[in-house]
C-alpha cells in the first residue's frame, strides 16, 4: 500500500462521493469531504419527488448516516472560499485552513440566469440545490399561477412539480418545439402533445423578456418577447446550468467554462483533479462533449480518479453515450448517438404507436448499415444489448429482426417488437 495521503474532496455530490468511496475501497488514505449544501450526500435527481410528496429528504440519501463514520470518510459542512495552490491548502468561510496532498474539486453546477430584469426578485429561482427546493416550497404556497422558463429536462420537472400542487402553469419555451435541439422532430412532438394533455399552457417560440415586481419585491408577472404580460407569483428559471467555479478565481487553476482537465481528470496542477459537472475535458473523446452534466458521468469520473490517485493511472473513458429522463408520464431512454437532425450519411427508422405516446428510433449509417443510436419513448430498452450492438456496428437489419433481445419492459407488457413496423 502507498503512503497515506490526505485527500480533500470539495463537493459531496455524486462525483465527489463516488471518488471518496472508491478511494476508500482501494486505500486507507485520509479522506475529507467538504460541502456547503447538506450534511450528507443526497440525490439531486430526486429533488422533484420531495416536493411532490413521493419521498422525504431522508429517502433521497443513498447511504445511511452511519456509513461515513464506519468507512472513515470525514464529512465537513463548510463553504470553501479559496484554494491556495502554492501552499496546498484551502480556506473555509469560517477562516479555517486545511492542507491537502491531493485535492479533488467536484463542485457541480449553478443555474443559469441571463441578466433579465427582475431575475433576483422573490419568487424567481432555478432548481438545482436543496436550498432551491426549500425556497420553492415556501414561495409556491397558495399561489395562483406559475411560469416556467426553459424547455429542457429541469424545466419540465418544475412544471410537473407545480402541477402536482394544482398550480396552473405557463411554460415558456424559446424553441419551436420542446427540447428540439436534442430530440428529433417526432419525439419532440410527442412531448409537446403530452405537456398539453396535462393542461399546461405551453408557449412555444416564446422567450422571457423581463420579470415584473410588485411593491414588496416579489414577482407578479412576466413579460414575454411578444410583449404579453402573464400574471404569476412564481417564476422557475430552467435555462441550463454552468460549472460552479467562481471560488477558484485567482487560484491559478486553469478554467474555461469549467475546470480544464486532461484525460486523467487532472488540472494544470498534478495534485488537483476536477470531476463531475464542474470539469471540462481539454480533449473530449469522439462524439462526447467537453462538459457533460449528467449523473453517471460524475460517477464514472469518481471511479476513474480513485483508481489514479491510488496508484493505478487510468484514463477517463465513458464509453458509449446513454441517458434517460422522464417527461411527466413518458419515460425516455437513449443509447448511442441520435441527434436532433440526422448527420450526413445517416438514416433512421422510426416507429410510433397509434396513441402517440410510445416510439422507437434507430439511427444507422447509410453506407455500412451499422446502427449508431437508439431513442425510446414509453419503452424500456436493455442497456447492455443496445451498447453491444452499437459497439460492434451491428447492421440495422439484424437489430430490427432481433429487437426482442433489447426489450426491457416488464412481464405482461404488450410485446412492442411485434407491433413495431418501420
Amino acid at each position, binding site marked *: 500500500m502507498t503512503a497515506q495521503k490526505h485527500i480533500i474532496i470539495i463537493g459531496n455530490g455524486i462525483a465527489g462521493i463516488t471518488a471518496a468511496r472508491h478511494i476508500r475501497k482501494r486505500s486507507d488514505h485520509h479522506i475529507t469531504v467538504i460541502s456547503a449544501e447538506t450534511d450528507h450526500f443526497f440525490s439531486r435527481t430526486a429533488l422533484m*419527488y420531495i416536493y411532490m*410528496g*413521493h419521498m422525504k429528504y431522508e429517502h433521497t440519501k*443513498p447511504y445511511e448516516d452511519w456509513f461515513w463514520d464506519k468507512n472513515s470518510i470525514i464529512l465537513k459542512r463548510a463553504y470553501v472560499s479559496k484554494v491556495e495552490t502554492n501552499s496546498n491548502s484551502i480556506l473555509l468561510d469560517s477562516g479555517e485552513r486545511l492542507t491537502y496532498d491531493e485535492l479533488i474539486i467536484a463542485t457541480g453546477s449553478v443555474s443559469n440566469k441571463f441578466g433579465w430584469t427582475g431575475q433576483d426578485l422573490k419568487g424567481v429561482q432555478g432548481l438545482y440545490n436543496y436550498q432551491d427546493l426549500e425556497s420553492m416550497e415556501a414561495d409556491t404556497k397558495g399561489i395562483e399561477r406559475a411560469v416556467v422558463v426553459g424547455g429542457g429536462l429541469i424545466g419540465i420537472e418544475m412544471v410537473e412539480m407545480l402541477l402536482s400542487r394544482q398550480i396552473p402553469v405557463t411554460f415558456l419555451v424559446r424553441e419551436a418545439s420542446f427540447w428540439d435541439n436534442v430530440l428529433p422532430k417526432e419525439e419532440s412532438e410527442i412531448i409537446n402533445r403530452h405537456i398539453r394533455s396535462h393542461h399546461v399552457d405551453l408557449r412555444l417560440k416564446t422567450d422571457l423578456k423581463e420579470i415584473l415586481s410588485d411593491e414588496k419585491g416579489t414577482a407578479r408577472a412576466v413579460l414575454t418577447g411578444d410583449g404579453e404580460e402573464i400574471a404569476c407569483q412564481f417564476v422557475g428559471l430552467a435555462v441550463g446550468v454552468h460549472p460552479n467555479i467562481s471560488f477558484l478565481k485567482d487560484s491559478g487553476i486553469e478554467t474555461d467554462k469549467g475546470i480544464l482537465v486532461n484525460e486523467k481528470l487532472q488540472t494544470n496542477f498534478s495534485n488537483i483533479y476536477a470531476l463531475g459537472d464542474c470539469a471540462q475535458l481539454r480533449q473530449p473523446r469522439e462524439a462526447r462533449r467537453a462538459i457533460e452534466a449528467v449523473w453517471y458521468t460524475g460517477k*464514472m469520473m469518481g471511479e476513474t480518479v480513485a483508481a489514479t490517485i491510488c496508484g493505478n493511472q487510468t*484514463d477517463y473513458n465513458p464509453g458509449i453515450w446513454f441517458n434517460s429522463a422522464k417527461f411527466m408520464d413518458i419515460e425516455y431512454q437513449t443509447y448511442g448517438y441520435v441527434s436532433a437532425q440526422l448527420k450526413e450519411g445517416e438514416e433512421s427508422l422510426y416507429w410510433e404507436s397509434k396513441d402517440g405516446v410510445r416510439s422507437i428510433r434507430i439511427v444507422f449509417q447509410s453506407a455500412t448499415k451499422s446502427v449508431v443510436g437508439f431513442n425510446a419513448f414509453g419503452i424500456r430498452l436493455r442497456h447492455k444489448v443496445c451498447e453491444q450492438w452499437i459497439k460492434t456496428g451491428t447492421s440495422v437489419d439484424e437489430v430490427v429482426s432481433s429487437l426482442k433481445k433489447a426489450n426491457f419492459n416488464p412481464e*405482461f407488457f404488450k410485446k412492442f417488437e411485434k407491433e413495431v413496423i418501420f
Partner: protein
Amino acid sequence: MSREGFSISLASPYAPGMDGIQKFGIALFVVALLFTVIGLFGPAANDPELFFYLGFIGSVVGLSIYTVRTYLNRPAGVQNNHIFTSSLTNRGLWGWALGIFLTGFYVALYWGSDEMWNGSPLVLLFNPLSQGLFNHPPDRWFLYSFIYTVSILIMGVRAILKYRHSNYQIVRTCSIMFFQLGFAFLIPQFLKSMSQPEYYFSYFWPLDYARLFPSTVDGMLSGGTIGIWMLIISAILTFIATPILTYFFGKRWYCSWVCGCGGLANTAGDPFRQLSDKSIKAWKIERWMIHSVLVFITVLTILLWVNSFLEGGIFGSISHALTKVYAFLIGQAFAGVVGVGFYPLLGTRVWCRFGCPMAAYLGLLQKYFSRFRITTNGGQCISCGNCSTYCEMGIDVQAYAQRGENIVRASCVGCGICSTVCPRGVLNLENGSTHTDRENANPITFGNDGIGLRKGI
C-alpha cells in the same frame, strides 16, 4: 413525523379538490356508514336486511364510486403525489387513528369472548349474506372473512386503476382477487355449508401451521375420501409444488399472486407500503426473527409427531404448551394484530417480512435455488430512491441498482412495484434460464470503459 400530518385534515393540503361524482361517492359512503354504525347499536340485530343492504353495501358502493372516479380522473402513470404530505399515509393523526382502530378490532376478534360476539349486531348484520349464500348463521369468523375479502376486492380495483400503466400489476392484482374470493372465501364457506371441513386450498403448512399437525391429519383421515385427498394435496403443495414453482418463478408465485396475507397487503395495504423500515439494522432483525419462527414451527411439528407416536410419552405436555404459545404469539398476535393492525404505522408486510414461516421457507428456496432475479438496466440508475422507498419488504433496492447489480434477496416477494415506480426504467423482474447466473456484483458503473468490467478492486 411531519407536523402537517397532525392537522385534522384527512387529505394532503396539496391534493386536488373533488368533482361531483367523487363528492357523491364520499357522501354516500359517509351516510351509509353512519347508518350502519347506528344499526350496530342494536337495530341491526332486529332488521339485518335493512342495515346490511342500505348500510354496509351502501358504504361499499359509495367508497367504490369515489375510488374509481379518483383514479380515473388522473392520467395513467405513477401516482405517488402527496403520499408523504398526507396524514393517513405518513403516520400522521389519521394514520395513528386507523392503526389504533385496526389493532383494537384484531384484539377483539382473537381474544373477545363468544358471548360478546355471538348475537352481537355486528355479526348479525351479515346474516342475510351468510344465510342467503351458505345457509348457515354468521359468526365472527364469517364476518372477518367477508370483510377481508371485500377489502381485497375494493382495494384491488383501486390498485388496478392506480397501477394501470403496468400490465404486470393488473394481472397480478386480478390473481390476488381471484384467489381470495374463490379459494379463501367461497370454496371454504360452501364446503362448510355442505358439512365438510372448511378447507383453504390456498394456505398450507407452514403458514397454516396446524395443517400437518397429527391431530389435523387424524381428522382428515377420518373424514373419508375427501379428507384423504385434502391431506395429500396439502403435502404436495408444501413439499413438491412449492419448491418447483419457486425454482421457476421465485417466491412471488405465492406471496404476491396467491396468498391472502400478501393479497391484503398489496390491495388494502397499498397506501402504506412506503412505511417499511429500510435500514440495515431492520434487515438484521428480520433475518433472525423470520428464520426463528420457521425453526420454531418445524421443531414443534416434529415434536407433535414424536409425541403422537410415543402416545403422549415424554413430550406431551411440552409440545401442547408450545402449540398454545405459537398460536397465541405467532398465529394471532403477530400475523393479525401486528401484521395488519400496524399497517399505517410500520407498513404492510411486517408479518410477511419478520414473521411468516412460509415466507421464510420460500425465501430460502428463492435465495439459493431459483431462476428469479430483479435485473438492473446497465448504468441508467440515478439513485433517486423511489424503488427503495416503495419496497414493502424494506429492501434497499437502490443500493443494488446504483451498482448495476441484480437483486437476489430472500425477502423479495416480487410485487414488482420497484420496477413500476422507477422513473428511469432500471428494474425488471425476470426468470432466467438457470439459477446460477444471477449474482453479478461489480463495483464499477456499467459502460465505464476506462476501468472496464473488472471484478474486485
